[in-house]
């Protein structure tokens, strides 16, 4: 287990170092997040629906699509000089490779979300101060599930043509359930409703994380081996 984690950390560290060097994907994702929030801000009729009612949906739609950008780049890094082939020849276990990519993607998406959340508050004037900690917890809970599935699918599509499009088409149906859960919990948090109302959705998010991290860890080898 220690070897597995050590190798996963080596992969994640390498991915983050590469991203730090180029900053292409992170800047794109942050700009994308700001643009989506801007479009939602100016594209809605404030007299028809209140910002507070729309806010949870807007927050999660923005985070979902920003996460797609992160997931797309995860295995594209490995296409350069066919580095993926080198990883597969090496003693690196497939599970370590998956966990390393998962860790790096989680860090990447967390950065995008940590920039997106203040922008969201700024644009929609949602009072998150009182619910900040539970909100961050819900974001973390939902993000783990999104990224776990997305990392698996990004490996699956990387050798195909139109990988970026295919990833979205494959991934979105799997995100519907956690997306519903995340929106519902967030709506209750913003509406000052007791968290007990959202326990079912929280359990759903936690179960989704456990099931899909486990399943993806097992299935990953079949996506990368020839």
């Amino acid at each position, binding site marked *: 287990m220690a070897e597995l984690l050590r190798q996963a950390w080596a992969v994640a560290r390498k991915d983050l170092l590469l991203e730090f060097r180029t900053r292409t994907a992170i800047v794109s994702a942050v700009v994308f997040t700001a643009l989506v929030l801007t479009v939602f801000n100016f594209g809605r009729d404030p007299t028809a629906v209140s910002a507070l009612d729309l806010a949870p949906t807007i927050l999660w739609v923005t985070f979902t699509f920003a996460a797609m950008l992160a997931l797309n780049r995860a295995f594209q890094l490995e296409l350069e000089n*066919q580095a993926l082939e*080198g*990883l597969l020849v090496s003693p690196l276990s497939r599970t370590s490779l998956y966990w390393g990519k998962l860790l790096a993607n989680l860090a990447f998406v967390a950065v995008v979300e940590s920039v997106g959340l203040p922008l969201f508050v700024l644009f929609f004037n949602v009072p998150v101060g009182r619910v900040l900690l539970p909100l961050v917890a819900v974001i973390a809970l939902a993000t783990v599930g999104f990224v776990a599935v997305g990392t698996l699918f990004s490996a699956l599509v990387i050798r195909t043509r139109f990988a970026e499009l295919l990833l979205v088409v494959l991934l979105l149906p799997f995100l519907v359930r956690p997306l519903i859960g995340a929106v519902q919990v967030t709506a209750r948090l913003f509406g000052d409703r007791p968290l007990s109302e959202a326990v079912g959705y929280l359990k759903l998010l936690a179960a989704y994380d456990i099931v899909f991290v486990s399943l993806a860890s097992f299935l990953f080898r079949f996506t990368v081996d020839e």
Partner: protein
Amino acid sequence: MLLAEGLHHAFGRVVALDGVSFSLAPGQTLAIFGPNGAGKTTLLKVLAGLINPQAGSARVDGGRRAIGWIGHQSHLYGHLTVRENLLFWGSLYGLSAARRAARAAEVLARLDMSDRAGEPVWSLSRGLLQRAAIAKALLHDPAVLLLDEPFTGLDLAAAGQLRVLLGELHDGGRMMVLATHNVDEGAELATDVAFQRRGRFVHFAPRGTRSAAEIAAAYRRAMADG
């Protein structure tokens, strides 16, 4: 010891390996010559564990840790320096931090690349990139080297340097399997010679006292015969 027994593999109706068997002991270098599409790369990928053959088996004593791969792709990350690449790959092969730093310095010095260690890989010429790839392959001191068209894209000087280096590695007692379509490039290094066509070894014998020119003539005859 490297042992391949009855290897068979097909991609759809295209047979890439058809009953390939051989064994190598330390100090032996097998040069496999064949035209494009003969199945040479598939054979190397099976030996490296990248492809599970549909029939037969391949075994390398020491498993993946014992294998070094040199192909026409470097497996290096363009935005990391040469040293950072080596340290990353060394960590995947289980070398301690001190050991991989020492080995990186050692192999770079051996390949006359110490002054390039801090340069990003994307800035290297084709010849230097290939040398960096060789450094990566030698980092963990593998007992078996798999070489897939390693001379591709190299100019005459760089190809000559590579031949000298491979000769030194051969003298060091490693097992090597070299696959190439160019007989002139690999014949001098070989202790054993195989001609591969449509997945089969149509010739497999010790090199003996045959000169490179004699092997090239035998290869042309074997390819013309059938």
